């Protein structure tokens, strides 16, 4: 299982992501954004951070980096792509995922452990999780307020594209940042492109406070 982890100027989660994936048994390679070709891989991971300092809009400039053309072609051919936090923002800016991520309603940078509830497991990413399962994973973002118009939301629901939603420890939906329908992560219609604001790669060892991230990332091991 080979994972290509992208690195833009301002990316800061590439080594955590590398560590987490290696621990699970992935072969990994960090790929600089100026590359025009992807290495041979089974999944592309766009990690978190602040690509291009979040200038203009989070992910707006990274989306035009040379490597993203290759990622778009890879995704169109059905290749698996996972965007975490800034990676999710980049994927929406690149139109590989629907909707957009706005400033959090309370205008704060929210950095804490957060409960999320699995909305669908009929996809590779969350194939190891149960629907309704509550996971405990860190979030760290200023622009995590997911927006999509009503028609778009209907599509997401109809096609089972909502992956995870913010909730409290009892599983009651929780309005963390203003996201439409408490959405924390989605996938595309074809279910090969995934994006989420929480950081599974930061919840992989007991010492970190949770190991729930492993369960999520492991889903890709069989791809």
């Amino acid at each position, binding site marked *: 299982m080979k994972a290509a982890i992208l690195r833009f100027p301002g990316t800061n989660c590439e080594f955590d992501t590398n560590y987490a994936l290696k621990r699970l048994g992935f072969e990994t390679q960090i790929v600089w954004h100026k590359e025009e070709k992807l290495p041979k891989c089974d999944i592309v991971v766009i990690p978190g951070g602040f690509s291009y300092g979040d200038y*203009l*809009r989070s992910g*707006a*400039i990274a989306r*035009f980096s040379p490597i993203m053309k290759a990622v778009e072609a890879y995704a169109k051919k059905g290749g698996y792509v996972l965007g975490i936090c800034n990676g999710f923002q980049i994927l*929406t*800016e690149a139109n590989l995922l629907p*909707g*957009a991520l*706005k*400033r*959090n*309603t*309370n*205008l704060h940078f929210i950095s804490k452990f957060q409960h999320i509830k699995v909305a669908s497991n009929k996809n590779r990413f969350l194939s190891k999780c149960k629907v309704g399962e509550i996971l405990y994973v860190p979030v760290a973002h200023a622009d995590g*307020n997911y*927006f*999509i118009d009503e028609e778009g939301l209907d599509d997401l629901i109809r096609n089972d594209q909502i992956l995870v939603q913010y909730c409290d420890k009892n599983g009651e939906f929780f309005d963390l940042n*203003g996201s439409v329908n408490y959405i924390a992560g989605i996938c595309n219609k074809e279910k090969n492109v995934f994006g989420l604001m929480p950081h599974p790669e930061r919840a992989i060892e007991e010492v970190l406070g949770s190991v729930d991230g492993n369960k999520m990332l492991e889903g890709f091991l069989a791809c």
Partner: protein
Amino acid sequence: MKAIVNIYLKEGVLDPQGKATKHALESLGFKNVQDVRIGKQIVLDLDIEDKEEAYKEVEQMAQTLLANTVIEDYNIEIVQ
């Protein structure tokens, strides 16, 4: 030629910064503020003489990069 692009969140898309600023204005005693929308302004210096050509090119820039049309509206002003 100079172009000014104003970008705002679309009507119906909640503007958290605008809302917070409105509250601040109210608490300062400005009672007549009905709504506050905060946007950004991008000023471009262009090496183009023709106004129409400039407008077309800036519109393309706005569509591709400057605005995210999922959540934002923009308007373009071409100034000499």
